[in-house]
């Protein structure tokens, strides 16, 4: 089973480029299953559903959607096997710039919105720096010079990645994306590991504290001046 994990900020065009790429894969006889993980709401299942491929939605509610996706991965792979798919695509919610939901064996794809500004690649964190492929969207809305600078900044963060430009509306570039997806490796669901550790979750806020005043906070707390302290027993 090939596993492709797609991350990217909300609205960057993850679903749009995937719909085009999956259509092309479907036409060439590849059987794919898609899982969309989001927090509170998604109607992306309807968009994928139009392609007549198996779609599953996972809503993480008040949990971190990336953590949710990671500890549900085995179930997703089993579900895709039952569907007799040869490829599982996991589209993540893409909310936090601290996580990278890619496993070592999967194909990690980051979708980056070129209109978000030339310094955005520096802010995206591990889901860009540990990706195998970066799909740059909305390039048609900026000048050629801005596109070239955006590309350069991506390579500063992730010099080894392959960059594809794609248009989520017209589908331009999505054929190359679908070819890249076919190069994904088969994953072994028992031995696979994360490329990057998940964010720290070590304070009282992580377990539901809602009061703001600092006297209520326990655990490992990092101050804005850079000092880190442990408060508690």
């Amino acid at each position, binding site marked *: 089973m090939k596993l492709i994990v797609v991350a990217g900020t909300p609205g960057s065009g993850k679903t749009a480029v995937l719909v085009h790429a999956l259509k092309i894969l479907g036409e060439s006889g590849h059987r794919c299953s898609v899982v969309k993980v989001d927090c509170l709401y998604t109607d992306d299942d309807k968009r994928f559903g139009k392609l007549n491929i198996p779609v599953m939605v996972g809503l993480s509610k008040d949990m971190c959607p990336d953590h949710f996706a990671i500890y549900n991965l085995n179930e997703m792979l089993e579900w895709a096997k039952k569907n007799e798919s040869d490829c599982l695509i996991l589209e993540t919610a893409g909310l936090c710039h601290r996580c990278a939901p890619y496993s070592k064996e999967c194909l990690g794809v980051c979708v980056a919105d070129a209109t978000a500004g030339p310094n955005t690649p520096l802010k995206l964190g591990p889901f860009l720096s540990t990706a195998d492929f970066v799909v740059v969207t909305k390039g048609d809305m*900026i000048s050629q*010079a801005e596109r070239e600078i955006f590309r350069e900044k991506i390579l500063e963060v992730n010099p080894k990645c392959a960059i594809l430009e794609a248009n989520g509306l017209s589908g331009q570039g999505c054929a190359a994306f679908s070819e890249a997806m076919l190069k994904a490796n088969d994953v072994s669901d028992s031995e696979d590991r994360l490329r990057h550790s998940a964010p720290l979750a070590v304070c009282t806020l992580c377990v539901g504290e809602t009061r703001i005043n600092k006297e209520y906070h326990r655990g490992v707390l990092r101050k804005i001046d850079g000092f880190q302290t442990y408060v508690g027993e």
Partner: protein
Amino acid sequence: MDIRKITIIGGYDKHGIKEPVEQIDVRPGEMFGVVGPTGSGKSSLISDIEQMAQGDTFSRRRVLLDDRVPSYETRTDPRKKMIAQISQNMSFLADMSVGDFLHLHAKCRGVRTSQVREVLRLANTLTGEPIREDYNLTILSGGQSRALMVADVAVISDSPIVLIDEVENAGIRKHEALNALVGNGKIVMVVTHDPVLALMTEKRIVMKNGGMRTLIDTTQGETELLESLKSIDGLLLRLREKVRSGESFDGNGQIRDVLMQTLYPKTRNEETA
């Protein structure tokens, strides 16, 4: 890298019908126009060429350099990129100063950063109010942005193939802009609605419904017409500058003589004689 020609192999129009124009070759030193109503696919054609499409775009056109499929690096690495493009964008989205932007772009293209001054100098010959290096890109007007894009392409993205999408529509000096972009021995494609620019080309591709409908050679008659059109256009540009600088006009008198001289040079000479 020198190239001898670029080939566009036709694909399909918006209705999935094969494009009537099957193949177009453009060689260094040639300027081609792209004309057609809005929505007819002119910008898509230019964008196919910019991306060096290989059947992977909506039109399924293919673009070859010297009869060969360009390598992945040629298609993507800006340092090796063969193509400079002025799109229809009229504003920058990058939130940074003009100077920082130009330095970064020079770095991307492997160009000396001393060229940044030259970009600004050129841009300021194309637009009205001067652009300064410490301005933020996003506060530039449509015309200033366009002028900067043109100058940036002319100086920093100096490439053997130049694609220009409606250079006339931003109120910048279009002839000066075109002269800056069109160097000797370059392959140039100009999308335009402007008859002067269209007739300056050697051939023009007529777009309809997303497809390349026909390829027209500019005739001898059209070249003669171009001379008259240039005079009329020059007159309009002079009037535009007057309007811009806040001048008033007193009726038809000021332009009648110029217009008559332009349209009927011989008749007018005979009359005065």
